[in-house]
């Protein structure tokens, strides 16, 4: 499934969670993914909670289920985003700062509507971009939400992000046994062979941003999606 990273109102691609490249208007990109019959879309904001009117436009443009992550801090905000047409919300920092919020969301909207984002750099889980000073040991991160009822773990390898150097299979294997939920892996996927390997290692689904948006050595912007995935 594609991941769209949004900065303000622009869609961007990250490299190791920094050095962002401009891809285009998110609404246009969503329209193209509609035509390409993408089954599910992940939208993450790196500029804080996006305005409701923009979120509504994104959800209304997508003719497939959509997840959103980025800057949601209150129950009221979460409730509004679900009502705008998003199927799932993705959380990361709130694991440490606001676990009560996550438990309340799980109770009110269902575990299946809640996803946790685990962004791994080396042996640490990042809590804010890829900044080393705001990361925790991966084991500690995993322990902090083992009591929470949620539906999906979005596992991203920050080291592999944007590199197109293949998935971090060790990471997938090391996390797989700790969780029963759906694990969606992201980071470094180049082709269908990489997707297959990630699935064989234990991922239930694979998410890609570069694979579906940039093409060739010059990494020109080309939105595509293979029809038989």
């Amino acid at each position, binding site marked *: 499934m594609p991941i769209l990273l949004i900065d303000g109102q622009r869609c961007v691609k990250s490299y190791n969670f920094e050095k962002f490249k401009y891809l285009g208007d998110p609404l246009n990109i969503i329209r193209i993914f*509609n035509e390409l*019959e*993408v*089954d599910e879309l992940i939208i993450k904001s790196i500029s804080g909670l996006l305005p409701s009117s923009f979120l*509504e436009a994104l*959800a*209304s*443009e*997508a*003719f*497939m*289920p959509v997840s959103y992550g980025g800057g949601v801090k209150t129950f009221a905000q979460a409730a509004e985003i679900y009502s*705008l*047409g998003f*199927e799932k919300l993705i959380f990361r920092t709130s694991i440490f700062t606001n676990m009560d919020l996550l438990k309340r969301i799980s109770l009110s909207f*269902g575990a*299946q509507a809640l996803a946790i984002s685990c962004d791994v750099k080396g042996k640490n889980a990042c809590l804010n971009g890829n900044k080393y000073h705001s990361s925790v040991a991966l084991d500690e991160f995993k322990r902090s939400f083992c009591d929470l009822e949620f539906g999906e773990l979005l596992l991203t390898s920050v080291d592999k992000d944007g590199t197109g150097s293949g998935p971090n299979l060790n990471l997938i294997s090391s996390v797989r046994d700790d969780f029963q939920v759906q694990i969606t892996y992201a980071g470094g996927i180049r082709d269908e062979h990489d997707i297959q390997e990630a699935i064989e290692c234990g991922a239930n689904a694979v998410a890609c941003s570069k694979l579906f948006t940039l093409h060739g050595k010059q990494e020109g912007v080309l939105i595509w999606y293979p029809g038989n995935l």
Partner: protein
Amino acid sequence: MTTLNRAKLGIISFGLGNIRALSNMLLEIGYESDLVSDPNNCKYYDLLFLPGVGSFDGVVSKLESSGFFDAIKSYVDGQGALIGICAGMQVLFNASSEGSKSGLCILNGQLEKFNTVKHHVPAVPHMQWSHVTFDVPIFDENGRAVNRFYFVHSYFLSAANPFSIGITKYNKFRFCSIVRKGNVVGFQFHPEKSHRHGKFVLKHFIGELIAK
């Protein structure tokens, strides 16, 4: 008589349901639609959509408090065409096994909740892409089958329901995923979240319901 793409389509807006994605998809297939927030205006439409999310009782309560409950019943009694989506389909029936409110009773039947043990399904709600086997298969303009849709629901209608015109299997459990009684059609799935399949199933049934 109005021609196909000049038909008046309305989407009932009563506070629960993802309306904009539906109206965008209708536009893509050539239909403009109004948001209908005044129940007195139902009679002006050739076809009404009833989108709904949430619980049976929750949707019924909202329809009652907004004045749409009786308006929809009158509209259907007057041979108006109606498409119910997700919870909007469920409230067309009599009741839900765990709710206390009575539905619109336009079609006979009762909704039951999925149970992981009883029905051997992996999770509740049924929240995923699943196949629909239509009694009469539907194809798009390129001859490709229209048969795969996105579902999000915890309650289901029995596959044995007499108004069923399509079945879905969740794991191995069969339930009814689309119903029809005369001018009233109900989709358990979300066509507005099912890209090509959603567009064509809407086009197919809109065509059937407003062709006179």
